[in-house]
């Protein structure tokens, strides 16, 4: 029921996004016909291309066509390649998801472990080192860190390929780089949350049963700490999809982010519009999954959803 209610509330959101995406993209400076025709084209040539692309049609007619394209891929084609946008997106999406999901998973794993270490030995050397690394991880721009990684691991050590996506090895460096931010965030989050939980009564009960401190932390305290972490993970994943533009450009990964950058620079409106719409659908879906996970981890939130 909750899922259905959430899904029905997502539809107006997506409709609003479609309106915003279509009309805002139309406001992007630069005329697609002029960009395709090149700087030496005459007015007549530009006009001819504009007519061919259907850009002379009234705005509402074009919007209706855009909505039609969601259900009929043959009308939603790229200005540059004339291929259906859904095909272009489907080809690129796996690469984006590999980097984003891989980066997030590694970040969560590293962050959680680091957070536990900090919480179990507060004020120790490990805590201090992790705090410094965390600050660095949050502060360093992915772009710079990516180039640094390429220089060190590809050029200097020769361990990993510098750019491309043709083998699994090509994804190692981008995933490592993109994992830094979530790892840093999660280590802080888990450490703070665990430290708060450590003094709670139910943990004393667990300790009284004779469980080791590690088991107490892993099996009793951590579950509560993860509730907040799950919400943050959802937001982080959304951010990673958005950040794929930078990561994919630095590492030469053919993902949706790169496709979007190219489309913006060439004013390929259909690709921009449908790619953003797809990201919006992802955001809605991620929010839904995050809420469901939170409910599963925290029964109190389930209580609130029950009808009075």
């Amino acid at each position, binding site marked *: 029921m909750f899922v259905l209610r959430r899904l029905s509330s997502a539809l107006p959101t997506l409709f609003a996004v479609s309106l915003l995406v279509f009309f805002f993209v139309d406001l992007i*400076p*630069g005329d697609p016909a002029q960009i395709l025709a090149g*700087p030496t*084209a*005459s007015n007549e040539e530009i006009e001819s291309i504009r007519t061919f692309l259907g850009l002379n049609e009234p705005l509402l007619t074009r919007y209706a066509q855009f909505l039609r394209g969601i259900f009929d891929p043959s009308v939603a084609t790229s200005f540059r390649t004339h291929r259906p946008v859904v095909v272009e997106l489907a080809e690129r999406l796996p690469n984006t998801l590999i980097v984003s999901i891989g980066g997030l998973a590694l970040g969560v794993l590293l962050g959680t472990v680091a957070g536990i270490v900090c919480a179990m030995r507060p004020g120790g050397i490990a805590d201090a080192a992790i705090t410094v690394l965390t600050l660095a991880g949050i502060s360093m721009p992915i772009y710079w860190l990516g180039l640094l990684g390429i220089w060190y691991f590809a050029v200097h050590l020769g361990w990993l390929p*510098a750019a491309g996506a043709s083998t699994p090895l090509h994804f190692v460096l981008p995933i490592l780089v993109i994992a830094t931010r979530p790892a840093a965030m999660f280590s802080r989050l888990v450490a703070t949350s665990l430290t708060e939980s450590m003094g709670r009564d139910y943990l004393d009960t667990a300790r009284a049963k004779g469980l080791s401190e590690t088991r107490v932390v892993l099996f009793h305290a951590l579950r509560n700490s993860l509730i907040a972490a799950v919400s943050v993970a959802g937001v982080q994943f959304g951010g990673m999809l958005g950040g794929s533009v930078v990561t994919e450009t*630095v590492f*030469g990964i053919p993902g949706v982010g790169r496709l979007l950058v190219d489309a913006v620079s060439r004013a390929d409106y259909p690709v921009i519009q449908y790619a953003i719409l797809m990201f919006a659908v992802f955001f809605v879906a991620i929010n839904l999954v995050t809420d469901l996970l939170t409910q599963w981890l925290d029964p109190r939130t389930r209580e609130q959803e029950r009808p009075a």
Partner: protein
Amino acid sequence: MRNLRQTCFRAALIAGLSVFAAHAQAQPAGVLRVAVGADPATFDPAFNDLPVGNAVDLAVLEGLFRLDPQNNVLKSLASDHSFSPDGKVFTVKIMAGRTFSNGDPLNAEAVAASFNRLLDEKVGSIYRGLYASLGTVRAVGEDTVEFHLAEPNGHILLLLASTAASIVNVKAVKEMGAEYGRKPVGSGPYKVDRFVGGEGFRLVPNPTYKGEYPATLKSIDFIVVPEDGSRMALLETGAADIVERVPPESMAAINALKDAKVVTPPSMFSINMEMVLKGSLTDARVRKALNLAVDREGIAKGVLGGLGTPSVGMVGPGTQDELRKTFPPIPFDPAGAKKLLAEAGYKPGQLLLSFTCPTGRYIKDVQVCQALAGSFENVGIKATPLVVDRGTWSKVIGMEPAARTDNMGMVGRATAGMDYTLYRLFFTGVGANRTGYSNPRVDALLKEGRATTDPAKQKAIYGEVQEIVWNDQPFLFLWYQTQAIGVSNRVQGFAVQPNETLVFDKVTLK
């Protein structure tokens, strides 16, 4: 008898070995890895607008004519050509027995179909306007094609030698739809074996090729890497043999490598500030003052890192060099500029100018604009550089002069033809003339030049046009961009056309 037998045996052995050696030499060998910066969304010559797409089209498709690495026109599929006495029908005989890589015959009918597709309004080619002067194209028999020109055109050879005029297999286009743009079916020495959007593509030899430039490589693997630093890392780690567009800051690092060097072939890219000829810029003294105010050598060395050569004419090298005229470089003379501005009635600080520059379109474009602003300030002009995104830039430079609110725009031109370049930029009222330039003598000469087929007459006509334009200075003439390509020492026979098209005709690997 025994001696004769031995002699015959030896002769047969030598003949056999030499045939074997020749055969072995002709076999394609080695994998060439090329890292490019731009993503070629399509290789369909009717829509491709990137140098990397031109390079692929040159290797995969054939035209009636083609350009060599110096931009000279050579015959390709054409065996002979002639104009009718009135200059309105251009007839081309094509080589017999050629086929597309899928086995379809490449005859006169296929050639006519390819051109008629390019000219078809419903196809929406970005080059339809450029080729409109071809009029209608007809197949006459199996090996003759007639172009019934819309107007006499003495530059048709150059038009037909561009990769945009490559012969496509229209039957395959109908079958494949938009996918043809990824795996075009042509008659060139290579064919596209694999294309992964945004990542790369591979060319392999076309076994049905019968022309003069057979494939020398087992495969050419292209990798698309837009980020300069990452692309250079591919050459440094040996993951690429050729990297295009080496940024000035990476040149020293690449040249310091043991296995690779930067080559800097000339480019026809002529970078200028195109003036909007209204207000203060209608005064020739102001235009000349602006040209004198700029230290081209200093900016080329200090800002462009040597990747620029000060202009000695409007059109860049490689733009039909046989018709090109060059002039002494414009001196850097701030005192002369101040004097001219004073003569035009402008005291220091009185003249206000703004100019539009793109971001990331040309080498160091933003920095160049800042340097130019400094040069103008130096002679007492209040200059405002308007550095904008590429979309806004293309919109501004495409506006009618009357609608422009700025005074100049930075634009690079690289068109392989004197007529195409000069007519579109300087003929009065032409839709692509964005400066508003108008000179009756230039108009008359450009008309005459277009209809003239005699190269000697063309040379005189276009020489005069270039001289008038150079003296009128409707542009702030800047420099010709220099190409910078990182090439591994194991690559031999690699060439680059002045329009930045990579040529793999004779490439072999050590």
